[in-house]
């Protein structure tokens, strides 16, 4: 049965190695810098995967996901600071909150097409960011919130990097698992059907709105949980770190680079872009301000221009479940592209 075969594919030897790698490296190499990169790598790979559930599988390309990230971070943190609620519980609360908001936002914006949908998600995320700055009674505004360093499992604060590594890794595996589920389930099938052709999906009797809202809720909730993890890892949150558009774009970029719509794509994207960004910043960041971003930006542009299907498309010639990023009515002439540039 296809299900069986693809599950073997999703958890095949290469995949297992890839998935375990960062955690292994982090545990084995005693360098703090390496550990930090590994944790961030897993965090952002997980976030990108969570985004991919809605963006890749359903084709609803949001560039405002940082709103959910920040909602998760702030919900758990505020509950902890104000009511001493354990961040673990706060994490669930944040996820539910984000899921709810995701559903509401989705029901308003899903009818919008293409770039209009994306732009509206961006606008929404910026609205949330501005509110988080202005409503300082609730959020402490731009000065942010510091989480006291008091180690304890219940407080989701640890004195050794190991638990952070493991938790980050569990998140990454968890979201990957959800992606695998999507890839092999009816929900995922319905989403992909919608993505390929809304009319065809409707004609098949699929309730395209419901399935997308479900995907939105799951995607938002998972992203929020990662926001909580971020808060507990960095122990400081402010609007400039959890609500900025850069985070949204990072999530999308990782998925694009690795292979949007695939299960392993966002993770590969994270493995490549996060260390690249960190290394560039640490090497050049101080010497020549801005240079590392120039390089990063160039990489982004080149990869997207010449590898629109992501890294995964290099590896398989027909990415499993991958989105075609070229518009389908462009002629693909075996003799060369239409016209000369």
């Amino acid at each position, binding site marked *: 049965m296809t299900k069986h075969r693809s599950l073997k594919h999703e958890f095949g030897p290469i995949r297992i190695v890839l998935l375990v790698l960062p955690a292994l490296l982090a545990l084995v190499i005693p360098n703090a810098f390496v550990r930090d990169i590994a944790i961030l790598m897993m965090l952002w790979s997980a976030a990108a995967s969570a985004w991919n559930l809605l963006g890749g599988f359903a084709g609803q*390309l949001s*560039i405002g996901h940082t709103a959910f990230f920040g909602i998760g971070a702030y919900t758990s943190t505020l509950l902890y600071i104000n009511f001493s609620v354990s961040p673990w519980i706060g994490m669930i609360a944040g996820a539910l909150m984000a899921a709810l908001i995701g559903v509401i936002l989705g029901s*308003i*914006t899903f*009818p*919008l*097409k*293409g*770039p*209009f949908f*994306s*732009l*509206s998600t961006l*606008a*929404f995320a*910026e*609205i949330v960011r*501005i*509110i988080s*700055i*202005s409503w300082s009674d609730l959020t402490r505004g731009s000065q942010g919130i510091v989480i006291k360093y008091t180690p304890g499992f219940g407080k989701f604060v640890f004195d050794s990097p190991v638990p952070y590594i493991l938790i980050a890794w569990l998140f990454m595996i968890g979201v990957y698992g959800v992606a695998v589920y999507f890839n092999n389930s009816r929900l995922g099938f319905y989403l992909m059907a919608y993505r390929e052709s809304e009319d065809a999906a409707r004609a098949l009797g699929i309730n395209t709105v419901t399935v997308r809202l479900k995907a939105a809720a799951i995607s938002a909730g998972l992203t929020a949980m990662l926001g909580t993890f971020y808060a507990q890892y960095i122990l400081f949150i402010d609007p400039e770190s959890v609500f900025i558009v850069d985070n949204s*774009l990072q999530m*999308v*970029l990782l998925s*694009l680079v690795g292979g*949007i719509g695939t299960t392993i794509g966002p993770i590969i994207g994270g493995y490549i872009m996060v260390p690249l960004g960190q290394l560039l910043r640490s090497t050049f960041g101080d010497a*020549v*301000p*801005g*240079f590392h*971003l*120039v390089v*990063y*930006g*160039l990489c*982004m*542009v080149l990869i*997207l*221009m010449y590898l*629109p299907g992501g890294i995964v498309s290099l590896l398989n010639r027909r990415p499993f479940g991958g989105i075609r*990023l*070229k*518009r389908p*009515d*462009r002629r693909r002439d075996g003799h060369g592209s*239409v*016209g000369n*540039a």
Partner: protein
Amino acid sequence: MSQLLVSGILLGGLYAMISIGLNLIFGVLRIVNFAHGEFIMVSMYLAYWTYFYYKIDPYISAFVIAPLTFLLFMTVFRPFVVKLADSSHLGQVFITFGIGIVLQNLALMLFSADYRSVDTAYSRMRIALGEVQFSLARLVVFLLSLVFTAALYYYLKKSYMGKTIRATMQNRTVAMLMGIDTRKVYVFTFALGAAITAFAGGLLLPIFYVYPTIGFNFALIAFIVVILGGLGSIPGTLAGGFVIGLTEALSGYFISASMKQLVYFCIFILILVLRPAGLFGQRGTEELGVK
């Protein structure tokens, strides 16, 4: 009160001027250009340095930078525009966003984050009409925005190339069946939009400081104006500019800068959801060029 109105209208013309180029690129071609702000920034810096080193007035260099930009995009940057046009919307977002990042940080590297401005003979000149005062530079931009709007409107409506552009935008495949080389049309229109944007940059220099990150605010306003006014509608851009300019002038005292942004974003979403064609867009045109 009349002072506010005049300021608002002048500002509106300014906002329209920086948005016209985006209306051609995003409104007509439906290419999401996240580097729009950076186009303006680069043009402003070019004007700045030509003034700094050669004492050439920015208004004059604007007339040189614009055609140069047009030529650049028709020739050297042509393959890039073609690639952009063939990419998905998300690809366009990120490619142009990446370009924007590169440009911003190049400016940062080369020119540092310092705020720079020019002081030309007239940049501080103000005109007084009765109780109302305004700066000459803003008047110039306002008048030019009217000129450009009218010129572009008639060009798109009456000229054969204008009709070709509109046809290509409405149905690219059928345009090909008419014998139109749609790639040429895309490149031409993009180059035109970029040139107008570059021109606007030169005009802005006497009014605003230039610094590497100035692009974001301009881009934000341009997108709002274009969507509000109606994608692909040139008079709409002017109207949208006036609405935003007046709103800003009238609310200027009461709302902080960040709240203003909040309002703009809310307007943005509202328009997209309630009347995506914008104030002046033809109903249904918002569907064109998007899946």
